[in-house]
């Protein structure tokens, strides 16, 4: 897991390695400066001891200047190290985000279905943030702290090895306390984060469904849900922090105990009661080392804590990074689509390999290039699933789908999808101008081409009426145009691809019957080669198709023209009658179509 993540360090390897080294420089100074202090203090104490003592001015001058030099060097190292760590950690985070995003771009529809949008967003932002903090802490502290610890111990040994033993003993105890506490606290934190997710989803739901809540006057119920959620978060936060607030005094207590032992022992050594090479000035220096050693241990513990806390985030990031597309690339990809013919051979399909719920079973179809094909069926009969197989948004479970006589799995993905345009049921436009959105279909489309596609989709007129025309800003999700307009823009966008096959997945539901017919008419005229597959609720939208496929519970129940189906298919007739009120089943003046 760590390996996967660390791959993203890349160009930030140098600062990542340099930072700890520079930090060691700073740490070394932290050791040297107190040592130099001892000399200054020592002189003063000798002076305090006997006023006649002639102070060694050179020694003080040298030590003081050395201290200044050291402090400046430490300052330099500290500042540089800080900058390096900021560069390395932010850069690492940037690469992580980019890598995740890149990988998400390779996902198939089946991959995408695995993650909720909210969870992907959390992974790209919050989780990366957590990892960034842990990384930053590690490169700053994980080398510096042990070095500080070891050199402090060494310096102490120089003064008096017995004292070093006391320190090591204290450090071990401290390490144990911190270790035990962190192990105890981890599950509580884990629960707390889980409860946080729950809390967020309550807020999220209430924001998106505010109208439902208000309509049903369910404010009190929702407030109750929220209170349960906050209560849970409170419970686990307190549980976790209780341990932490207990840990800190324990840590201080150990530190104090070490200091008291040092002073008791040291005083006795200085007084000559116990053998040992410690004098009064040394004691104060030892005090400083004690702090450094113990804070070194604390730092390491904190780092480990950060890492363990961010472990959940790391796991979630790795999941995204390691997810491989469920659509394997073709070995020797075919790079050209011969024509827009489509064949389904014994196709079975299920959304998940595990589930045995077949969405499509035993589908056999043959659609010739240039044909107009309508698909009709009840809610949940598998219409969308059927057409999703053509641009290989999903792979079949059994059988094969062929485009232009070649299995879709043998095509280069970009070529296949470039040749098959699909106007999805859930139309999405992006923030940006009308022209920018249309150019999704063809990046290099000229003004004329945009206009032509818009005209074919019956969108030209209303685009011109918009303030700014093709330059009009659509806003996020295309909120600034109506449903029908949105659908027509999506159609124009698809037309710009000049596809071999174009699929309309219920994409004219908000367009009136006349415009609907006009769009079909212009398609017939301007794209005779293109195979047109239309899923529709309205019989009128498919009535004049060359072929209409009636789907029922994942199976093809009938295929034929409008007139044929009226005679042969009960389902089709029923749908037709439901739309015409059954008065004039043969189609009269007021039967809902032109």
């Amino acid at each position: 897991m760590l390996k996967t993540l660390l791959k993203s360090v890349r160009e930030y390897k140098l600062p990542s390695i340099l930072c700890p080294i520079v930090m060691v420089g700073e740490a070394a100074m932290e050791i040297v400066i107190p040592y130099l202090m001892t000399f200054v203090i020592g002189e003063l104490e000798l002076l305090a001891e006997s006023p006649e003592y002639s102070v060694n001015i050179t020694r003080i001058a040298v030590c003081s200047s050395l201290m200044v030099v050291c402090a400046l060097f430490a300052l330099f190292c500290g500042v540089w190290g800080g900058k390096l760590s900021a560069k390395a950690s932010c850069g690492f985070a940037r690469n992580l985000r980019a890598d995740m995003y890149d990988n998400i771009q390779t996902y198939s529809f089946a991959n995408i279905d695995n993650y909720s949008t909210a969870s992907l967003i959390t992974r790209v932002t919050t989780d990366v943030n957590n990892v960034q903090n842990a990384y930053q802490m590690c490169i700053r502290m994980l080398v510096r702290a042990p070095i500080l610890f070891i050199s402090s111990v060494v310096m102490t040994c120089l003064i008096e090895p017995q004292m070093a033993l006391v320190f090591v003993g204290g450090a071990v105890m401290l390490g144990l306390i911190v270790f035990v506490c962190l192990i105890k606290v981890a599950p509580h934190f884990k629960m707390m984060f889980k409860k946080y997710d729950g809390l967020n989803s309550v807020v999220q739901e209430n924001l998106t469904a505010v109208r439902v809540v208000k309509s049903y006057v369910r404010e009190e119920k929702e407030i109750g849900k929220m209170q349960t959620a906050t209560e849970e978060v409170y419970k686990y936060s307190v549980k976790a922090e209780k341990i932490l607030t207990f840990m800190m005094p324990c840590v201080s207590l150990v530190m104090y105990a070490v200091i008291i032992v040092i002073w008791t022992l040291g005083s006795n050594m200085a007084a000559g009661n116990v053998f040992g090479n410690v004098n009064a000035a040394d004691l104060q220096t030892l005090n400083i080392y004690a702090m450094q050693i113990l804070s070194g241990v604390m730092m390491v513990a904190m780092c480990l804590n950060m890492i363990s806390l961010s472990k959940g985030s790391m796991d979630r990031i790795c999941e995204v990074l390691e997810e491989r597309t469920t659509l394997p690339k073709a070995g020797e990809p075919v790079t050209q689509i011969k024509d827009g013919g489509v064949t389904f051979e014994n196709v079975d399909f299920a959304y998940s390999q595990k589930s045995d719920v077949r969405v499509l079973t035993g589908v056999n179809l043959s659609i010739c290039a240039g044909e107009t094909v309508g698909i009709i069926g009840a809610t949940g009969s598998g219409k969308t699933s059927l057409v999703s197989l053509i641009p290989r948004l999903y792979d079949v479970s059994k059988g094969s789908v062929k485009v232009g006589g070649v299995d879709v799995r043998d095509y280069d993905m970009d070529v296949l999808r470039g040749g098959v345009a699909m106007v999805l049921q859930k139309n999405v436009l992006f923030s940006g101008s009308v022209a920018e959105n249309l150019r999704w279909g063809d990046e290099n489309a000229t003004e004329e081409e945009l206009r032509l596609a818009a005209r074919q989709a019956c969108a030209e007129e209303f685009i011109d009426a918009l303030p700014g025309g093709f330059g009009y800003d659509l806003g996020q999700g295309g909120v600034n145009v109506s449903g029908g307009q949105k659908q027509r823009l999506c159609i124009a966008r698809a037309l710009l691809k000049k596809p071999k096959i174009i699929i309309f997945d219920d994409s004219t539901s908000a367009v009136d019957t006349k415009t609907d017919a006009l769009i079909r008419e212009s398609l017939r005229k301007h794209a005779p080669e293109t195979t047109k597959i239309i899923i529709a609720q309205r019989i009128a939208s498919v009535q004049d198709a060359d072929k209409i496929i009636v789907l029922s519970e994942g199976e093809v129940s009938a295929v034929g023209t409008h007139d044929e189906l009226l005679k042969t298919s009960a389902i089709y007739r029923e749908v037709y009658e439901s739309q015409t009120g059954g008065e004039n089943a043969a189609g009269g003046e007021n039967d809902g179509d032109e």
Partner: protein
Amino acid sequence: MAMNNKVMGHGGSNFRGAGAKSPMKTLKRLLGYTFSRYKVATAFVVLFVLLSAGATSIGASFFAPIVKELIVTPEHPQVDMWVIYRNIIIIACVYVAGGLSSFAYNRIMMYIAHGTIKKMRDEMFVKMQRLPLRYFDTHTHGELMSLYTNDIDVMRQLLSQTIPQLISSALTIIFVFSFMVYYSAFLTLVIFCVLFIMLLTVKQIGGQSAKYFLKQQDALGALNGYVEEMIEGQKVVKVFCHEEKARERFKELNDNLNETGRKANSFAFILGPVNNNLGYLQYVLVAVVGFVLMATNNVGVLLSGYLAGNTGIAACAGMLVSFLAFSRQFNMPIQQVTQQFNAIVMALAGAERIFEMVDTLPEDGGGEITLTHGECAEGVWAWKKPVGGGFEFVPLKGDIRFENVVFGYDDDKVILKNISLYAKPGQKIAFVGSTGAGKTTITNLINRFYDVQSGTITYDGLDIKSIRKDDLRRSLGVVLQDTHLFTGTVMDNIRYGRLNATDEECIKAAKLANADSFIVHLPEKYDTMIKGDGANLSQGQRQLLAIARAMVSECPVLILDEATSSIDTRTEKLIEQGLDKLMEGRTVFVIAHRLSTVRNSHAIMVLEHGEIIERGSHADLLEQKGKYYQLYTGAFELD
């Protein structure tokens, strides 16, 4: 709906990247909010912080006598171990007391902080539930969401860590300061000079850091927004092979975030070493100044503190040793305070945003008339209207009338012009017209999501403004254009319509809505969990559930706003039969694009530019050969 979204684009006054506008006021309010609820606990916190800070500073002063005792001089030839032990015992006691106090205040503060955070979240949520719809239309979800996450989070840090640390640091500074003045006022002055330089540096660096941290928040928001949009539209991205393009803009935003983050963190990380090493320089400076003064025999200047008059050079040197130790102690808390700088800036910016939301005026509760069940007669729903001292009951029927209603979302843009209509109990009224003609707006006015600008709407003869809002809405069943489901089982979601509905009633509603047939195919049937707004269901299935939810509510008035747009006509037909059975004697408003949906209505209103241009039954309207006829025959574009 589309209308409301449009408003959203222009709204959002809340600029996330800005710092707090009035930090002092916000801080005062935040502290008041936090501590006024925990007066006694706060007193204890202050007491324990005092004890703990006192212990840390006083404890150090007992080391000097030990050092002094250990140094053997002709006048003091014998080390008295008792003096040493006594001091060590005092130090131990002081430390234990200090440790216990710090444990105590941390514990208490933890309860205060988390308690406050919980309380604040709850209150924000309660408050949010009472906000008018207009508020949600003018703020993005991301904005509101981050109030509960980011903003609250930095506040928790402020309360549980920064504030106790600040108090403790301030006290330590005061203690140490007094000791230093006690020893030598002159050297204290020297320290103050360094301190001044230190503060200037901190202000510079900290200011830069805070600036970039706020910018970083902004960059993060922008990235969030983009990722959200792209991942929402991921399937379109795929279908158009647009992956490369989608990466470009992301790269830009990602680089921007990296840049601001790097700067913000650089400045923040620099603060520590700068302070720390300035502290060392200060140490050297004090030592040198002390020596120079001693060497030049200016002991009087040196000992200008409480010890003035004690002119021995030995005492002087001893004092200098202690003073140097204190000066190290003085730096620690100052360093701690400066490192909290960013936390404070960010927390105050967040707190201000939270208070802004809490301060928004809530939706008014409506009038005095309430809905009662069984109060005037057994099992009868009725409006209870206060008249004089007593009450008058008006039976609930579902008669709705609009009289000369004028309305616009903005004052200067009228959406509905002078609408008058009536719907008698049991009638089905349909609205037909282009998007933006005002169909959804009409239903928004009935349940008082918005209020009319002029004219009146009456419900069973009562002005809806005189009815309590909750009761008014309770009497209206609504199926909205966008279906939203809640985390929970399928059954829970149906029961949302009426909380005391039995399982049988829910299943019956599901059958009427034709949802039963797909529910029984779900892995756990009615106990299947719905997650992420029903992501595992198809658009049509979600609509069926929403209809079942409305059916179970048994309201006398039902509003269906494009409720069957994703359902095939055959299923719709089946639902309609169920609806008709259920809604016998009740009023239904239908908005639909599909004319087949509205055909059997008692009255169809054709709306255009906020006006009713035609009304009548299907047959009447066809006879009129007007707009409806054109629509129906496809001669006119409906959009």
